[in-house]
């Protein structure tokens, strides 16, 4: 499922990221913030209503804020994932 559809506070991990849905610069910044396939992720907060506001997620031990458009490009699976902690590559 997409990160935008993930229920808050549910442990999940990044299954796939559609890098074509964002600019190269944003893709690189996402990776620098620890978001990559296999990274553990948990949706913490959504700003505003209708899932259109910014999303705050725990990625490893860091909280990362991103717009709904970026969150929609991230596919996640619930569960602890193939590795514990942050991004596993």
């Amino acid at each position, binding site marked *: 499922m997409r990160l935008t559809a993930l229920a808050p506070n549910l442990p999940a991990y990044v299954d796939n990221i559609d890098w074509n849905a*964002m*600019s190269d*610069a*944003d893709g*690189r*910044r*996402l*990776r*620098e*913030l*620890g978001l*990559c396939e296999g990274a553990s992720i948990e949706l*913490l*907060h*959504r*700003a*505003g*209503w209708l899932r*259109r*506001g*910014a999303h*705050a997620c725990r990625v*490893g*031990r*860091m*909280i*990362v*804020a*991103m*717009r709904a458009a*970026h969150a929609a490009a991230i596919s996640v699976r619930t569960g602890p994932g193939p590795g514990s*902690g*942050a*991004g*596993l*590559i």
Partner: protein
Amino acid sequence: MSQSGLIALVGNPNAGKSALFNALTGARQKVGNYPGVTVERKAGRLPLADGRVMDIVDLPGTYSLDAKSPDEEVTRNVIFGYQEGERRPDLLVIVVDAANLDNHLRFALELIALGIPCVVALNMVDLATRDGLELDPERLAADLGVPVIPTVAVRRRGLDHLRESIVAALPAHAPAAPVRRDHADLDEVALRREARRIAGRAIVRETASRRLTGTIDKAVLHPVLGPVILLALLFVMFQAVFSWSEAPVAWIEGMMAALEDGVRALLPAGFLRDLIVQGVIAGVGAVVVFLPLILILFFFILMLEATGYMTRAAFLMDGLMAKVGLSGRAFIPLLSSFACAVPGIMATRTIADPKDRLTTILIAPLMTCSARLPVYTLIIAAFIPDRTVAGGIGLQGLVLFALYVAGILGALIAATFLRYGVVKGGGGSFLMELPKYQMPLWKDVALGLWQRALIFLKRAGTIIFYTTIILWLLLSFPKPPQGSEVRLVDYSIAGRMASVLEPVLRPIGFNHEIALALIPAMAAREVAVSALATANAIDAGDEDEEARSLGERLQGRWSLPTALAFLAWFVFAPQCISTIAVTRRETNGWRWPLFMVSYLFVLAYAAAGITYWTAVAAGL
């Protein structure tokens, strides 16, 4: 620039570099700019145990050496020795967040691979412990191949040990030749994997712990409660600016009055006494009394930054920013612009998209900067009754809040037009880390306030001092012929200049006195107050008249619609040479500053006119 060795503090954003820099240098620091760019250069001196005194710079935070924004470019250029006016560092202090090791180690590995002598400061170990992490610094040092020193910068812990390690690692004590590390040729993915592996080995124990940040965020980032808290914080901030400053403003006014009496007693009546009393003390003094208000405002902004709340505010505001085509990141420079547009515009360097950045620069002057406070508070105190309205809220504070809101709304509307007009294209984006909450260190907040007070007083002692003296001279000469009924302020050079401008401003309710104040206020907004004070001091018939406050005198001469129009003018008018200069530097030319000045003056004229005509129609 001194020829002693150079140490650079480098690391990810939110690793605590600035706190470590403050802890290492104390007040021995100098804030300036790198030549050719407006990226702030924070430098200081670091005495070491072996007698050497090193220069130390605090580099902008970045996630990698692959720079994305102007400030990240400076970090990369300094490290590689390409930055104009800066030597290549002799040693790097790589600051990593102990609670976020796997992420911060990726950049640390990239830096270590360069072969420059370095020491890793494993910072904020106390917060890592609070988060349930137990780390093994020695194992981490063995894996990284460089010394690792646990520190808590805000509590000044681990600093002696860090200084000792710096001495040991500096070229005089260790081989200077760059040593390529095993991971020097790893690609991005492999580097991340290596960072994770090393971080995993360094974590001895990981237990469940109280999550302070999560608990606070539940309220602060709540879709309903969050914006309410943000609005309440901003409201308290603006109320405090008025209510907390009453006593210190009265002290400064008392000091100025005593100074004036002292000068009157010391000097005989004449040119010099008039220059000092009517020019310097009335003019500069009228601005200096606002120092407490400005410091209260900066206190709140420093606290919001130091606690980690500022990025939460950006998170909450992103939806609104997106609607007007801006990056959510733009909220931080815009909030900083409440203190002063100059650092606000400089802070836009963290925005990667050039069009997002340009739009933010163009609307930053609409945020109500502290220089407007002297103007606003003078007029509000004189024309708005000091009483409470519903719920014990002060009416004066409420009007001030409304002026701030008017600036924000103006900025949002301007951004919308700019993004769909002259700055079309590019997509706003919002990707940022929300740091953990921290109790700010009062010493650092005090240091920040001290630096801001010095900047303000320096401004009062230079730009405001000189413009006030020039204005006093222009207002005092030539004298009208004896027996003439023409007032000196009308007959003088400044009075005649104002007469040329007055017909343009008369339709929006402005009088000759306002026209006169607006000319020198092009240098800085608060000069409008000193200009009014100087003109009134010259115009005062006797000492009793002179003793009346400026506000009382304006009350007698301005109508309420004129006063309100004057406030509306200053919500928009771009009267600040420093802002125009920094915009020119940031945009590499005159095109955008000229555009900014033009559109803001048009808005100022329209806003003042609409306010005046509406107030007159309402019978105020």
